[in-house]
């Protein structure tokens, strides 16, 4: 019997399952409990004999494994072929993927092949119902795919009433990962890869590949000094670096600051960047669009420095300082040093 379960695509690099996939497994477990169905996962790659140990403890009931030398590193066509065929066989009701360069390459291709809806970069996933007035039809147990939209001025709840699976991508760090039980009993099903791919899927030749983990550790930093467009220049951003260094933190940036060239893309915090939960978040010249707040609103404490008294960021700040970043940051450095020595 087809169970219409919850499925998570597990991304694998160098034998390690990506954090974002494990975060989605934890989310998927919660959704499966609520829907009273199984949580299933798919791992595609090479040398995956031990991979179950990084997947099943998150509460996975069935793990499908496609293990073949040609399947690592990730390539669009063979991974799509496997996922599409497996989804046609298993008919999941929900499928989740990381909003990573892999998930955002694979997800839309799979959704197009299956004619199922896909919502990108969700910040929240919950189960709910829907009543369609036109059709006079009630839908139960739909996946609400919630995300900021339109420059962050609105929060949209997207549903896929009629097409399955309901697909969503989520950025790393948005959901929390948690091992359910190190001895969780899940079933492993090894797929016969040749039945799932065609030779024509392997037309891309990977000539070179440098995978480098980002040297920055913004996600793990206890203190983040983040700058927005209001910082005004790359030179002013140096002040943020000074403050971060003095406090033992990292520098983050809003999308507007990255777009303006004030900071590198790796530092972008928000819905389309990194999600952080530091002890202290110092927002400098950041207005605080919802898309930015989505990436930092779980910070334990927030200081907002802004010339605009009405900036949205002020509403979620513990300290609101109205003034110029170039004036205030040197004072913060000065009084930090004075009072710690």
């Amino acid at each position, binding site marked *: 019997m087809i169970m219409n379960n919850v499925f998570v695509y597990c991304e694998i*690099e160098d034998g390690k399952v990506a954090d974002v996939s494990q975060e989605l497994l934890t989310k998927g477990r919660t959704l499966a409990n609520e829907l009273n169905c199984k949580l299933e996962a798919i791992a595609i790659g090479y040398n995956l004999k031990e991979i179950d140990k990084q997947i099943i403890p998150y509460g996975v009931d069935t793990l499908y494994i496609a293990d073949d030398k040609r399947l690592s590193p990730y390539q*669009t066509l063979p991974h799509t072929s496997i996922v599409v065929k497996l989804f046609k066989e298993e008919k999941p009701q929900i499928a989740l993927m990381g909003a990573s*360069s892999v998930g*955002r*390459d694979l*997800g*839309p*291709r799979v959704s*197009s*092949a299956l*004619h199922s*809806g*896909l*919502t*990108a*970069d969700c910040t929240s996933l919950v189960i709910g119902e*829907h009543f369609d007035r036109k059709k006079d039809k009630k839908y139960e147990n739909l996946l*609400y795919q919630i995300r*900021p939209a*339109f*420059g*962050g*001025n*609105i*929060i*949209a*709840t*997207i*549903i*896929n*009433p009629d097409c399955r699976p309901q697909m969503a991508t989520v950025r790393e760090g948005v959901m929390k990962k948690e091992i359910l039980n190190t001895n969780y009993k899940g079933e492993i099903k090894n797929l016969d890869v040749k039945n799932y791919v065609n030779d024509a899927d392997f*037309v*891309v*030749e990977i*000539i*070179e590949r*440098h*995978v480098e*983990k*980002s040297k920055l550790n913004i996600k793990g930093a206890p*203190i983040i000094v983040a700058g927005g467009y209001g910082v005004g220049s790359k030179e002013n951003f140096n002040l943020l670096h000074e403050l971060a260094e003095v406090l033992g933190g990292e520098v983050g940036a809003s999308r*507007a600051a990255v777009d303006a060239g004030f900071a590198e893309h790796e530092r972008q915090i928000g*819905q389309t960047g990194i999600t952080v939960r530091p002890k*202290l978040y110092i927002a400098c010249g950041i207005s605080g669009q919802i898309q930015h707040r989505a990436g930092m609103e779980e910070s*334990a*404490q927030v200081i907002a420095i802004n010339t605009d008294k009405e900036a*949205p960021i*002020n*509403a*979620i*700040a513990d*300290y609101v*300082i*109205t003034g*110029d970043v170039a004036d205030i940051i040197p*004072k*913060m450095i000065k*009084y*930090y040093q004075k*009072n710690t020595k």
Partner: protein
Amino acid sequence: MKTYNIIVLAKQVPDTRNVGKDAMKADGTINRGALPAIFNPEDLNALEQALRIKDKFPGTTIRILTMGPGRAADIIREGFFRGTDGGILLTDRAFAGSDTLATSYALAQTLKKIDNVDMIIAGRQAIDGDTAQVGPQVAEKLGMLQITYVEEVVELNNDTVTVKRRLENGVEKVRCPLPLVMTVNGSAPDCRARNAKRIMRFKHAKTVTELQKESADYTNMHNSRPELTIPEWTVNDIETDASQLGLSGSPTKVKTIENVVLSAKDSKVLSASDAEIESMMIELIESHTIG
């Protein structure tokens, strides 16, 4: 010398990066009029990649395909100013309310009408939705290979292309056969500026609908210079299954839209005075938040 037939997919988007206070109406809906319509930034990166291919392989043709309302003809004109050979405006109320899947269906059905396309190049994503879905979905619907996150076309050799991809944690260089769909990253080179001579040459480029609002002189000019007439295609110019179009053909539905309302925290409001900054720093040190 080998030449290529390139289609650039581009979108006119509201400039969500510069949303002012008047972007939202009092009733919580979006005031689209307050947002300037611009060429989607990463589509300009895509256009530049196409133009660089044309620089190296003269005789290559570049056309822009854009779907949108009549004013999206600006995208085709902008392309002319920067070096394209033409474009198609796909415009019809039947496409209104399309999600990414319905959009890619309409675009793919249009592309099926265009023969011998070697490369379809698009921006990675559009700033009004940030989904990065339309490129891969168009590729799937055409049964074509897709290469996403392209930063540079390194080499083009007959029917083989080598590109550098910029991934979130590294770079990848791949070689693949044409035809294919490429989506170009914002980290790729910016698009060249408009060319003054081309502005003079193409500023009168108009769609048929736009021409109808102009004087007879315009029609005469377009009769003698047909390259100025921007083709407008409607749903009648392509083969479609109506159940896959527009709002009703979109698997995803917007259930609710909430205006963002902030519940204010109890915050301490400080001036920039030395005394107030110092007392804040002392509080943070004492609570072991810092130090």
